[in-house]
């Protein structure tokens, strides 16, 4: 199974396995990783599963399309950056094995 790494805001890394077809948000929630709240349960409707995608992975995960619901919800999240994504909108594929993302200071 692909492995993904979440780095907490304080620098603590967590590497977990997740089946292809699941979302990055599910990888965090199913492994009880603190800092990914996912209040809406993956509907792209709360922006509390916000992550920053490490530069070397941006090409593979892509960025939210302009005008998309993800872009709209992200625009209300606190402390966004150009590499911000909602992890519920990233579906894991074998190509994303090794993906590294960082977490913001807080979900909001």
């Amino acid at each position, binding site marked *: 199974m692909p492995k993904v790494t979440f780095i907490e805001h304080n620098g603590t890394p967590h590497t977990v396995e997740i089946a292809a077809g699941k979302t990055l948000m599910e990888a965090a929630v199913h492994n009880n990783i603190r800092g990914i709240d996912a*209040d*809406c*349960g993956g509907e792209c*409707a709360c922006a509390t599963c916000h992550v920053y995608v490490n530069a070397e992975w941006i090409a593979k995960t892509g960025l939210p399309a302009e005008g998309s619901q993800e872009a709209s*919800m992200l*625009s*209300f999240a*606190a402390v966004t950056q150009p590499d911000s994504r909602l992890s519920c909108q990233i579906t894991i594929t074998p190509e994303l094995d090794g993906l590294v993302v960082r977490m913001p*200071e807080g979900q*909001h």
Partner: protein
Amino acid sequence: MNAPVNYDSALEEARRDAASLPLSEIDVSDPTLFQNDVYYPYFERLRREAPVHYRKDGKYGSFWSVTKFKDIMAVETRPDIFSSEAKRGGISITDRPMEFRRSSFISMDPPRHDEQRKVVSPIVAPANLNNMSGIIRERVCRVLDSLPRDEPFDWVKLVSIELTTLMLTTLFGFPEENRHKLTYWSDVATQDVNAGGEVDSEEKRLEILTDAVRTFTAMWHDRAAKPPGFDLISMLAHGEATKNLVNDPAEFLGNLTLLIVGGNDTTRNSMSGGLWAMCKNPAEWQKLREDPSLVTSLVPEIIRWQSPIVHMRRTAVVDTELGGQHIKAGDKVVMWYISGNRDEDSIDRPNEFIVDRARPRHHLSFGFGVHRCVGNRLAEMQLITLWEEMLKRFPRIELLEEPERIYSNFIHGISRMMVRIPS
């Protein structure tokens, strides 16, 4: 109006009524259902038999009721189909006359909504929440330490109103000594004109709130002349999308009441409703005493249980389908958060108050989508701090009688709750 003397028999009667009425006659907009706390069986029947339900010519006109979690989510995530615009009808089931429909960013659709909301949202960004945590804890300690022992007192007045109004003074940079005005304006802004209170017409409401506009206009000009500060008035006065707001008194008042009510009434009622829920569920309170770290799941559970906002309304802008029903352009669509929060298909054991739920934040009380409550993490922080400090001080708080609730189908409010803290 007080709660019925015998609550159990009132609920039993509501159960019979809800079971026997023809579906077409069920009207969940009746504010007495919430005032008397007997709304449950009506929503249970709708969720089971008519989850997207049309009530023709009800107390608040003709409207669709959306009662299940997933259907509510479907409405929340399509602002292009289900509009919040004030001119179409806004966000409340009450159809105010056009001249009293005040716009604000909660009653706007994207993109204007987005521009205005972004001006104020930094006040509740994580770094600023950290900045406010000290003053919140200090006030909670002061208020709790001043409570009487061994004698009855009103928790709503001495704790819930006091703490949330003090929070508002910080958010607005409003003089603390005049804080009772904020509570008053907040209540005036939401009071149902049929509730039997001071606000018996929209004219009367506007007359009282004009005083709020005057006060805040003076504050606005003062803040606009100074460098940008970190309070809501300064942020609006200096924000690119809102810097002329003061010149549009109706929209200025709309946004003021949104921020006052949103930052006050909702958390106030969760502070009261949370204690009520814990008094009714002593085993859950015991769990919390044994493991105080559970406050972080207790608080979202309280917010689900209370559902401080009973409903939000949208208006369909095109013909559409929801839950197998055909909704026409112009129809009023009401999302009953208070019902979705008890939906057994989305929430495990929804009719139980459980302080250690696995996913307690999966509730509708803050709404979802672009209008999701901007202050949701601030609300949680205030409630977490309150419960942490209560746990340190009071092994027990006794509920002396059932709380009095307000006549409203919009704000799920508790107006009085007598309790006693044994020494």
